[in-house]
């Protein structure tokens, strides 16, 4: 999994502030933090603050629950690590305060230690059920204070580290998803993904799509026009690939390669690939019409083939792609080259696996790299509706 991280600049920069790097064993005795003392009795606040100061904690105080919440929610207050909370207080008592703290997203994880008299153990039980971390007796032993606050601080540090780590993982995952196809990003983030990335054999359906006439277009159009066109083309195709749950292997100029049935299993992978092809052809009609008005003839040609391939991590240390090696992939690419404007050509195995899509044989083709001529089929429309946009007999302009 680590081989893939250098793909994203974000993943690299994240490594610098990776909380795992600072994830050291927590020395409880050395732990100090900011402690808020909430008690209506001045004597108790004074005593507790002094004891906490002596241990090395920074202290704040509030005379009741409402004052504590106001202080904690004040943007000028630096975050507090532990709250010592008295139960019986005027204005807002300990229970109401605890409930408000636990209902507040930003304060929920600050450990609360309830201060209680020896005759208030029922209240302690109630507070712990409400989410208090611990309790301290009112007649305070400094050693107990030290130990309980350190324990709560330790838990909070761990929780903070855990939160930071989860945040980093989530950030990396969302960054990865921008660079990789979502299925591959999920694989990379998943501990079981390593075996899949290492390589596996799978029957897949590969779809290759590129543009007729793109070479002519890119030579005659302004570079800005070419880039503008590619952006629209990639955005359109990208959203269709995602909508059809295809695994996008790569975009290269006007060519895109998409797999089905890998890494996520899809029983109907051939059908899905052809459905994607039909959608691409449909959506491309508008794009094509728009560019035709500007004087450029741009049409898609799509090739689809089904067969076994070895799938996984391909490349070298520092730059890996998720990809495949197999005849089906080469065949899809060759068929795309054979397709005329708006045509979707597929190999026999893909054709055989279709249920609801009509396709017709368009004869045998001698394809580069394949010793024997291959029977080739052209997709029509779903449910047998005739598709006028695929001129079967049209010549294949130079692409």
């Amino acid at each position, binding site marked *: 999994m680590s081989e893939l991280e250098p793909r994203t600049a974000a993943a690299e920069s994240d490594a610098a502030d990776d909380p795992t790097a600072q994830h050291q064993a927590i020395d409880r005795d050395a732990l100090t933090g900011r402690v808020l003392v909430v008690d*209506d*009795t*001045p*004597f*108790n606040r*004074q*005593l507790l603050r*002094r*004891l906490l100061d*002596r241990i090395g904690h920074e202290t704040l105080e509030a005379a009741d629950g409402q004052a504590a919440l106001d202080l904690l929610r004040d943007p000028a207050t630096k975050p507090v690590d532990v709250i010592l909370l008295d139960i*019986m*207080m*005027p204005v807002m008592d300990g229970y109401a305060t605890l409930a408000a703290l636990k209902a507040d997203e930003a304060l929920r994880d600050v450990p609360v230690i309830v201060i209680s*008299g020896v*005759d208030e153990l029922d209240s302690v039980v109630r507070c712990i059920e409400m989410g208090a971390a611990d309790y301290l007796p*009112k*007649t*305070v*032993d*400094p050693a107990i204070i030290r130990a309980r606050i350190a324990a709560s601080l330790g838990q909070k540090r761990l929780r903070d580290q855990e939160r930071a780590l989860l945040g980093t993982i989530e950030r990396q995952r969302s960054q990865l998803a921008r660079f990789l196809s979502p299925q591959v990003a999920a694989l990379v983030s998943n501990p079981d993904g390593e075996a899949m990335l290492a390589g596996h054999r799978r029957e897949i359906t590969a779809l290759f799509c590129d543009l007729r006439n793109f070479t002519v277009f890119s030579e005659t159009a302004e570079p800005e026009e070419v880039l503008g066109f590619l952006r629209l083309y990639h955005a359109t195709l990208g959203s269709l690939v995602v909508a059809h749950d295809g695994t996008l292997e790569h975009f290269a100029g006007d060519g895109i390669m998409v797999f089905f049935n890998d890494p996520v299993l899809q029983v109907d992978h051939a059908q899905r690939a052809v459905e994607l092809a039909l959608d691409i052809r449909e959506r491309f009609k508008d794009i094509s019409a728009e560019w035709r008005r500007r004087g450029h003839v741009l049409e898609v040609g799509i090739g689809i083939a089904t067969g076994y391939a070895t799938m996984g991590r391909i490349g070298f240390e520092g730059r890996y792609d998720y990809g495949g090696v197999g005849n089906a992939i080469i065949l899809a690419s060759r068929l795309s080259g054979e397709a005329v404007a708006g045509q979707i050509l597929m190999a026999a195995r893909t054709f055989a696996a279709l249920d609801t899509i009509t396709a017709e044989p368009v004869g045998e083709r001698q394809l580069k790299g394949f010793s024997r001529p291959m029977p080739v089929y052209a997709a029509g429309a779903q449910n047998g509706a005739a598709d006028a946009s695929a001129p079967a007999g049209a010549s294949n302009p130079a692409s």
Partner: protein
Amino acid sequence: MTDGPIDAGVFANLVEMTGGEMDFVDELVDTFLEDGRSQLATMRTAATESDLETLGRAAHSLKSGSLNVGAVELGALCRSLEEAGRSGAVPDAASQIDAIAAEFDGARRELIAERARRAQS
């Protein structure tokens, strides 16, 4: 201070808790005395207004300070009043508060005397 209003053992604990900083002990005692006077005033007002919630809370507040400075008997009286307040009716609130005030006064004298003895030694 044995058998007086202040339990010597508890008071020694308080001194130990502060790390033997007597200035701070004096500060705490002053806070206790000041707060105690104010809680007593609150109790009297609450009793005349039959505000049992405020009465109980003031007793509770004075109780916790009392127990920390060693005013054990004062703490016990406060606790009775607090519990009575919680039970819903305190017919003898005024006499209970008088008893608390008397015990508080005794504790105050003892605490001040302790400070004076320390100053002499």
